[in-house]
């Protein structure tokens, strides 16, 4: 599965309004629901929270990757959100999180999940890439940066 099949400009939020971890999850999930990528908002949000409870997906470097595999997901999706100041997302390194990649996948697709996260993680380890994401000043630029993840060598 390619990242470019999971995301489009409508699934990008340049400036999240959220002020807390819960609000980030609500804001990103609401967009998935508005775009009919998920069938049931509350149940999907519950699945995301259940996963966060096991261990925070705030992986450090200002990045969080909330994700859920749920029967309430209609279309596998990646929604990207950026927060200018950063949010306390219980990150493993204790830093604030600015870049959010929420991944929603239907229940039956296990490998997609692992490989998508792997591709994304490889790219996000690169500080230049993170800086480009923070600096991009429109959705088009953000989308082409995110789609460039597909070009990453395995």
């Amino acid at each position, binding site marked *: 599965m390619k990242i470019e099949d999971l995301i489009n400009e409508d699934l990008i939020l340049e400036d999240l309004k959220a002020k807390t971890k819960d609000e980030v999850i609500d804001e990103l999930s609401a967009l998935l629901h508005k775009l009919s990528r998920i069938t049931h908002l509350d149940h999907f949000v519950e699945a995301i929270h259940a*996963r966060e409870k096991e*261990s925070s997906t705030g*992986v*450090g470097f200002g990045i969080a*990757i909330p994700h859920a595999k749920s029967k309430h997901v209609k279309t596998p999706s990646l929604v990207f959100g950026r927060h200018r100041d950063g949010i306390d997302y219980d990150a*493993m390194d204790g830093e604030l999180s600015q870049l959010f990649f929420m991944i929603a996948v239907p229940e039956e697709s296990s490998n997609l999940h692992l*490989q998508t*996260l792997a591709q994304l993680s490889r790219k996000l*380890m690169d500080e230049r890439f993170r800086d480009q994401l923070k600096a991009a000043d429109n959705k088009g630029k953000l989308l082409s940066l995110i789609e460039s993840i597909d070009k990453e060598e395995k």
Partner: protein
Amino acid sequence: MQKRVYSIVSNEGLHARPASLLTKIASRYEADVFIEYDGKNVTLKSVIAVMSLGIPKDAEFSIEVDADNAEEVFESLETVLKDNHII
């Protein structure tokens, strides 16, 4: 440097949650701890590095520990791997 090899039995591979648990355990030790899969060797103290390997079901991977208490480090990592049905 001591090295041990494992293979994944979990259908979901070494997915994000156990990866973050491993990272937490490894970070408790001063030891250098690495994980290697498919020719790529990364620190086991960064969850994003571990996730970047995307280790799938049936794959073999190895963990390397450089410390006097390597045995103890391996044991706590293996406990997490077994408790989460990864190996």
